[in-house]
């Protein structure tokens, strides 16, 4: 790389000049960051930290003294988050319910207050999972009915749990592998492999091409003959629009890191005056025993 730069520099005969462009105070001011993904029927746990201006080099601090409140659909305070440690806050007063709207406000000394709202979609009432094993490839058809009355967003994950005998230690260890692939063109997350399939640990997609229909989502993963007593936990979540946009853009952002040829990615945020995400989802899970 040094030699390439040397040749270019010599070839042009010029010394390029550099100077600092100062950032104004507005651009430097830190803001509150919320990492707040929550699920219906599960304790709400969020993380609050600080952003820093782009020139900062160091650990990004957590906020441990925030005043974080949970609101209902009408903006009424229904609970106060309690700080557990390391910037994590837990809601003990309210368990999010399916099909509900929640809001959050966070205030901290020295910061502009932030707020956001999201919802927990209705759970899918029935999901059918068909499987077919061919050698070491396990194929799945996940069949579900989409609600025709609204735009729906989904997240699918397949968690493989298996025991593996480690001949070196003599132990049989429980492993977890979340990696699977699909050739569904509707997926907006994941990495493309050499076969043109999309692979990853969660598949995000919307009902734009199958609204109101009974849809069959195909995917597959790898099961080695050495993997014993294998179980597959398939989770199909209905996710909020905020959750969907955030995770799709974040996945794209992560994929493009270190690629100088990639277009910049704007990671979605629904936090007003801040950054991060406050997004809800509801899940349907099924565990399959793989013979």
């Amino acid at each position: 790389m040094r030699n390439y730069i040397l040749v270019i520099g010599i070839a042009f005969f010029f010394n390029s000049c550099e100077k600092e462009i100062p950032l104004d105070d507005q651009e430097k001011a830190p803001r509150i960051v919320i990492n707040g993904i929550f699920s219906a029927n599960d304790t709400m746990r969020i993380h609050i930290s600080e952003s820093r201006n782009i020139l900062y080099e160091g650990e990004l601090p957590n906020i441990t003294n925030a005043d974080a409140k949970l609101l209902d659909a009408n903006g009424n305070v229904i609970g106060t988050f309690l700080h557990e440690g390391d910037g994590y806050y837990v809601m003990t007063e309210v368990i999010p319910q399916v099909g509900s709207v929640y809001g959050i406000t966070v205030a901290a000394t020295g910061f502009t207050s932030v707020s956001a709202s999201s919802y927990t979609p209705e759970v899918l009432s029935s999901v059918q999972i068909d499987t077919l094993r061919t050698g070491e490839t396990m194929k799945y058809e996940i069949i579900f009915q989409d609600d025709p009355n609204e735009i729906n967003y989904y997240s699918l994950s397949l968690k493989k749990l298996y025991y593996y005998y480690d001949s070196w230690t003599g132990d049989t260890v429980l492993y977890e592998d979340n990696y699977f692939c699909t050739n569904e063109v509707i997926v907006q997350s994941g990495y493309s492999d050499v076969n043109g399939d999309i692979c990853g640990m969660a598949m995000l997609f919307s009902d734009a091409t199958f609204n109101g229909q009974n849809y069959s989502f195909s995917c597959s993963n790898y099961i080695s003959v050495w993997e014993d007593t294998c179980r597959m936990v398939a989770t199909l979540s209905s996710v909020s629009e905020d959750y969907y946009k955030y995770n799709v853009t974040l996945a794209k952002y992560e994929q493009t890191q270190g690629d100088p040829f990639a277009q910049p990615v704007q990671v979605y945020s629904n936090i007003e005056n801040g950054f991060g995400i406050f997004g809800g989802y509801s899940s349907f899970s099924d565990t399959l025993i793989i013979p």
Partner: protein
Amino acid sequence: MKPTNLFLSLLFILASQIIFSQTKFTISGYLKDSETGEVLIGGKVYVPVLKVGAVANTYGFYSLTLPAGTHEVIYTFVGREPIKMSIILDADLSLNVDLKPSGMLDEIVITGEVSQQESTEISTIDLQMEKVKSLPVLLGEIDILKTAQLLPGISSGSEGSSGIYVRGGGPDQNLILLDGVPIYNANHLFGFFSVFNADAINSVKIVKGGFPAEYGGRISSVIDISMKEGDMKEFHGEGSVGIISSKFMFNGPIKKDKTSFMISARRTYIDLLAKPFIALANSKNPDDNVSGGYFFYDINGKVNHIINSKNRIYFSAYLGDDKFYVKNKYTYDDAGIAKIEESTGGLSWGNKIMALRWNHQVGPKLFMNTTLNYSDYIFKTGFGLEGYEKGKQSTPFESYSFEYLSGITDWGGNMHFTYFAGPKHKIDFGIGETYHTFKPGVNQLKTDFGGTVTDTVYGGKRTYAHEFYGFIQDDFKLNRRIMANLGVHFSNFIVREKYYYALQPRAAFNFMLDEKSSVKVSYSRTAQFLHLLTNTTIGLPTDLWVPATDTIPPQIGNQFAIGYTRELNKGYRIGSEVYYKTMNNLIEYKEGASFFDTSKDWEQLVEVGRGFSYGMEVLFEKRTGKTTGWIGYTLSWTMRQFDNLNQGKIFPYRYDSRHDISFVLTHKFNDHIDVGVVWVYATGNAVTLALQQYNALSQDGFYSTTVEHIDERNNYRMPSYHRLDIGVNLHKEKKWGQATWSFGVYNAYNRKNPFYLEFGYLKNSDIKVLKQISLFPIIPSVNYSFKF
């Protein structure tokens, strides 16, 4: 005399008067330079008493129909002595007129050009090559596109670039024609210079709006460049030797007054100049040997043959290439075995065009041009790595090579007719067809690691398309004060069994307020069946020309413009225009899309959206006397909107520049010395910068990603750009011709203008800052040119 005879005589006289007064005849012919025989494109023929005139077309042909009788006719062209002649018109007359060069524009010429106010041309500039050659420029390299950037409504985009952004349009939206053939990449040296050798150019016409119906295929501008044809009478040559390039042009008769030729060539020698420095660097590190360089060349050629008074043929060709290469050979010891690792890398791009044209004068009022053309643009980049034992290069133990190729090839033809119905009425019509072959982004990857070989081709398949069009336009005078140009351009595009068509009405009206001022109004609808995919993250010529397809629709433009111009005393002119322009079906790369993404076709990597721009342009010129020049000012807004970019919100185009000012002045002290001064100012470009960072946690909380947050696309304004250039030309007459020494200073007050911004560290500092990288400091130049 008997009463009957008297009556019959009177009747005869009356009848002959009536017949004679209604009889019209046509003067037609070619306007040429008396010394070189070069046609004078845009030369004017004017009859002051009747206040009618005509303009010579691209081939120097004019036609003017007048009532029978005696007329005083003035022939004029900028920089030539006008000719007034008295013509007795009692039959159609073929009259070729040769105009002599003059040292300076004077009032007589301006009088002859009063008819400019009568033209329906709006948003149109005719660049004078004498002006282009007299202005101070970067490294002494005269460049017509850089001169065009000094005019209102036309900006360069970035430092040193010869890219053209016209009224908020993109660089792909300019129809750049060289002798009627489109050029796809008009840049040398990564955009620092254009491919046009000014010595080979006769005329340049730039249309920013109010497009006549004869033009189609692009939605923002037309840059119509005509090459010189060659001196029909004597051999002449011109050349220059500069800091980084030299050029030479030679032209003359093959057969006097019948056939002429022109050939010009230019090459840089940056690679040769860099060799000693590279050798010096290598001498300090014998195990690590680097070689490399950069060069560009271009060659223009033309042959012009007059078959007879009604037929001429021309053959013109252009060939040009840019090549950047680097090679590194590293020798190392691996467990006592000497091994070599050789890496290579390079970029090259180039255009080839050819045109064969036939002019035929069907009659005194009907002129026809038929053109067959070929255009080929190709861009290649690649890198390779090979490892082998010393002395065993033929059997490497590892090799890896990657090549990326893109391009576009056109075969086409057209027929264009001009019917000079009368002095107030000219009709143009024609048809054309182009067969496009698009090669958008083909990747080839070859690897050989220990005998395991792969050879894979990825990426865009060739796409073939037919583009054909027809047009008709009528340029006419409604009355003494109102002129109009109404037309329609109808184009069709067939690609992959998908058929697109676009009916594009064009209208321009000129309301003459008085002899010296006019108001012009225009509307144009334009269609473009090609897109240029531009990668904004890297400054390399990696742009891809791609067609409209069944999934990506063609671009559509609509532009309204209103302008006012006034001729003032002593050669001054002031003009102002306001415009509003919409652009639909623009494409941009999707967020996260990578230029080298081999797993998807380009269509899967883009979003479709729209743009709009509006603004006001003012041009105040002094066009005569020893001191000439202009002040141009543009106030403009240019925005884009894509549903899936920037969260659907409107954002400024990267090259949205609120204020743009140019000041151009040339002063001729005498025939030996002239000076030029250029000062430009532009509001900084809009770039995308992340200004905040935060941690995004995974759902299970086990890992986090530090996100550099981008609030809005193109959210940050670079500092403004301004620069002063000064040049002086010293001419000396020699026995064999003329020699000129040109001395110039680019960026005379050494302004550190922004080239790009990045986050990093200044020298000798460990504090991270936002850095502005500047490219060109104060740069003196010296250039020796000659003419014989």
